């Protein structure tokens, strides 16, 4: 992941972009009008894709077994289901009545800083994990306004605060087997009894002494808790571990770099493309022993397909900075892995970016859907990339079906789906000591960690996107651990088009945008889609919005107290009503610009993102509140 320390000269040359929230729904196409008028199952059309001659016959579904044992009104996993769809089948709130949404209750977490992640709802209890110090609250939803059943505060090592790169955030918990399980910033995983709030087990996964932290939300698959580490910018070597759900005992560990034995690559490893085949590529694609500091941490989202028994996640950027120092492909950084959760063995892999020069950390969500392509039902994996491309794979084989741009992107021209290779623009590749201007997207990507949502009803992926570019320029004196040195500066600025964020409704089969909402500020919140055909997301200045899933037309909005970088959820309360919940609390990498102690004239500010959002301080102050809405 990325960087807060060395950073950048924040030249806020960014003219404040106005035109917030301009709705740019594209002209409805035949398929969409049909779909809006008819029940989804009858929506049939065949449209050739400009991208890859893909055809669509009907809308989508999620893999069988994706929702696990949870009820339709609950939310047990970070992305609601194993498919990471962030889709709720609740439909009481719909496109006709969403304008009547009102605040039902609020809850202050008592912590400022970035509230990424999402609450869980299990039965009649909501569970909220705060940013560091990573408290866990259990809120009784049967009591008016919500009353705490208990709270739990883990014992943690405060040094983690000085190590975490991008605010002290946490991306949430998972529920399984009567336990709420989540990670702490100081690299521990804890399981808490969901009824009593008592700690069941707590295990140390990583070591803050060498720069490891954990921010990601775990997933529980077949009795195993899947956890990955953070800290690539400190030379940490990335990995995923599987812990026994009952005890926390480690069952397997798969590194992202190093020999095949460490990466858990064996005879059953069958990458689709020749570029990803070979022995010990996690060593051979580096010089000397650099893979030991190789990054490729796993701080994003994990998904799982019960039908194929494959676990999916993608890895972060390679360490250390300066691509000239690590000649080679630097595998398996920036790589999508499909693994067998039973033993951790890799089944296939695809490296999105070889030899990264931009920090295009690809830990984004991998959304698993079932959609017809060219008349054939295909098991798809959709990965909206930091690189500016949305990648759609056949998840059973790793074949790339399409990769098309969804935001201004100039570092690469296109991706060849026959070879899997990206055709780059060599003038946009960074080198130390060389000025490279106008690289799109910037290191923050066309999106960052904030997860998309997929609606099987519309067949669209709703992507919270950024439009920010960067100059990689000169050097300045810097200093760390008693050692002065010269570092490069990165200056970020709004990309072309007079907007910095966009909620993109993306058709993964035809590989194109169907409609979108342009936003003034980059989107750092996740997205929720519901069976009421309503899509929810928030903005960095605190607006929480509902739009029509088919047209992107705005249905409703509400101004919360702080910027939104969390992910909305839907649940059914004990009273049978549908509720929508989201955190309001600015922070995270870009959101740190809103903090009073982060100065926008500080050249180190948040790795240059202050140049992208110099106006954020005026638009949001720190906060930490759960908002719940209902009709």
């Amino acid at each position, binding site marked *: 992941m990325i960087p807060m320390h060395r950073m950048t000269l924040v030249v806020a040359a960014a003219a404040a972009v106005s035109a917030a929230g301009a709705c740019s729904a594209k002209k409805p196409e035949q398929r969409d009008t049909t779909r809006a008028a008819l029940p989804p199952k009858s929506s049939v059309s065949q449209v050739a894709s400009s991208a890859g001659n893909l055809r669509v016959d009907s809308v989508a579904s999620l893999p069988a077994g994706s929702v696990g044992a949870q009820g339709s009104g609950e939310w047990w996993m970070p992305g609601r289901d194993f498919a990471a769809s962030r889709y709720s089948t609740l439909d009481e709130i719909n496109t006709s009545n969403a304008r009547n949404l009102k605040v039902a209750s609020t809850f202050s977490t008592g912590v400022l800083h970035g509230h990424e992640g999402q609450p869980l709802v299990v039965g009649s209890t909501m569970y909220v994990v705060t940013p560091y110090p990573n408290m866990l609250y259990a809120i009784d939803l049967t009591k008016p306004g919500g009353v705490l059943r208990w709270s739990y505060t883990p014992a943690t090592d405060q040094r983690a605060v000085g190590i975490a790169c991008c605010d002290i955030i946490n991306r949430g918990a998972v529920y399984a087997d009567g336990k709420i399980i989540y990670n702490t910033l100081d690299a521990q995983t804890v399981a808490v009894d969901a009824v009593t709030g008592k700690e069941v087990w707590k295990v140390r996964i990583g070591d803050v002494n060498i720069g490891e932290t954990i921010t990601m939300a775990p997933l529980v698959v077949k009795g195993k808790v899947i956890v990955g580490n953070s800290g690539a910018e400190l030379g940490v070597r990335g990995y995923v571990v599987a812990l026994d759900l009952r005890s926390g005992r480690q069952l397997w560990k798969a590194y992202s770099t190093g020999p095949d034995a460490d990466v858990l690559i064996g005879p059953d490893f069958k990458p689709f493309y020749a570029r990803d085949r070979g022995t010990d590529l996690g060593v051979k694609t580096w010089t000397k022993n650099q893979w030991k500091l190789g990054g490729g941490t796993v701080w994003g989202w994990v998904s799982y397909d019960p039908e194929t028994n494959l676990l999916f996640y993608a890895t972060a950027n390679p360490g250390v900075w300066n691509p000239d120092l690590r000649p080679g492909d630097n595998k398996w950084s920036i790589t999508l892995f499909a693994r067998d959760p039973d033993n951790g063995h890799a089944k296939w892999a695809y490296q999105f970016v070889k030899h990264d020069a931009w920090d295009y950390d690809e830990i984004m969500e991998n959304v698993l859907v079932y959609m017809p392509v060219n008349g054939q039902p295909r098991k798809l994996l959709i990965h909206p990339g930091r690189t500016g491309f949305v990648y759609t794979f056949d998840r059973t084989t790793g074949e790339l079906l399409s990769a098309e741009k969804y935001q201004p992107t100039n570092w690469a021209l296109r991706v060849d789906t026959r070879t899997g290779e990206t055709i780059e623009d060599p003038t946009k590749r960074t080198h130390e000591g060389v000025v490279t201007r106008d690289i799109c997207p910037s290191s923050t990507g066309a999106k960052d960690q904030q997860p998309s949502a997929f609606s099987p009803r519309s067949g669209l992926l709703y992507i919270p996107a950024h439009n920010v570019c960067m100059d990689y320029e000169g050097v300045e004196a810097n200093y760390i651990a008693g050692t002065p040195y010269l570092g490069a*500066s990165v200056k970020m600025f709004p990309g072309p088009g007079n907007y910095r964020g966009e909620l993109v409704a993306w058709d993964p089969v035809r590989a194109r945008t169907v409609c979108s909402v342009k936003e003034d500020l980059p989107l750092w919140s996740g997205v929720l889609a519901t069976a009421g055909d309503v899509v929810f997301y928030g903005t960095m200045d605190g607006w929480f919005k509902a739009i029509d899933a088919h047209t992107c037309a705005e249905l409703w909005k509400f101004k919360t107290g702080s910027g939104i970088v969390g992910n909305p959820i839907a649940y059914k309360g004990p009273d049978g009503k549908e509720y929508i919940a989201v955190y309001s609390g600015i922070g995270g990498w870009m959101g740190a610009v809103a903090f009073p102690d982060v100065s926008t004239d500080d050249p180190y500010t948040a790795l240059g993102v202050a140049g992208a959002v110099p106006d954020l301080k005026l638009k949001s102050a720190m906060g930490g509140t759960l908002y719940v809405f209902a009709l």
Partner: protein
Amino acid sequence: MSSHSDMPVVIPSEARDRDPPGRGPRLPVPLHTEVLVLLLPALLLSLAASDGRENAYGHEAADAHDVTALRVCADPNNLPFSNEKGEGFENRIASLIASDLGLTLHYTWWPQRRGFVRNTLKAKVCDVVMEVPTGYELTGHTAPYYRSTYVFVTRADRHPAIRSFDDPALRRLRIGIHMMGDDYANSPAAAALAKRGLGGQIVPFMIYGDYSQPDPPSRLVRAVATDSVDVAVVWGPLAGYFAKRSRVRLVLTPVSPPSAAFQYSISLGVRRGDSAWRAMLGAELARRRGDIRKILEEYGVPLVSERNRER
């Protein structure tokens, strides 16, 4: 090192007792790790509210007579610069200044890594950091009080002195360097080697190292002594100190030709705008120039003249 379990902030108990009246409480003792983050802003607020001043030494309190303490932020585990036992040359120089000016010396310990300035000087838990490169953009600073250079470190019994990155011998050698991390930056040696196509010879050492071990950056110098690398490119003060203590004789050769990337002048860092405070410290450094030089020499710091600056 169990002594670091309370890291990163340990405040000596006299800190609060000796606060001048009217300034309000500073920080409680000891600060527990769990509460620090939440408590700190509130305490700072109460400090500001108690006397309406931004801080004791800011431009709003330009009268230097008001100053009764030298509040230093330093790394508790980073010799030869500083440690919490007071064994570093930064500790020695801080003591010298405090004693001369009749100030009580207070330390706030914080590892020198990302966020150091933000969490120390800018958080106003101290008023000076003992070293920043002259011209540093994150802080204000005094005039430089020393200047040093990166050096090549080799074993006296193995390899002849390396002077330049253009030395053809480097193509055959394992070259140890410090890596800064992934934040668009690295040590100047990394850039010099990359430019010459010598990236493949690099053996990387994270500057942060393993913080559970003493003085983590020192591992690079020890790697030369143990023959894990043939040559290391190291910042002078670090190389000088650990070479002196090495059982194997090590040779230090300044990187040649001298250049802005390999030589740095070092100043005391203060908050921007704390001009009276900066002037007071600057005058003290000038007055004690000879004694400070003696301390630096005692620690083996390779000193280069400001006249050699090449810009």
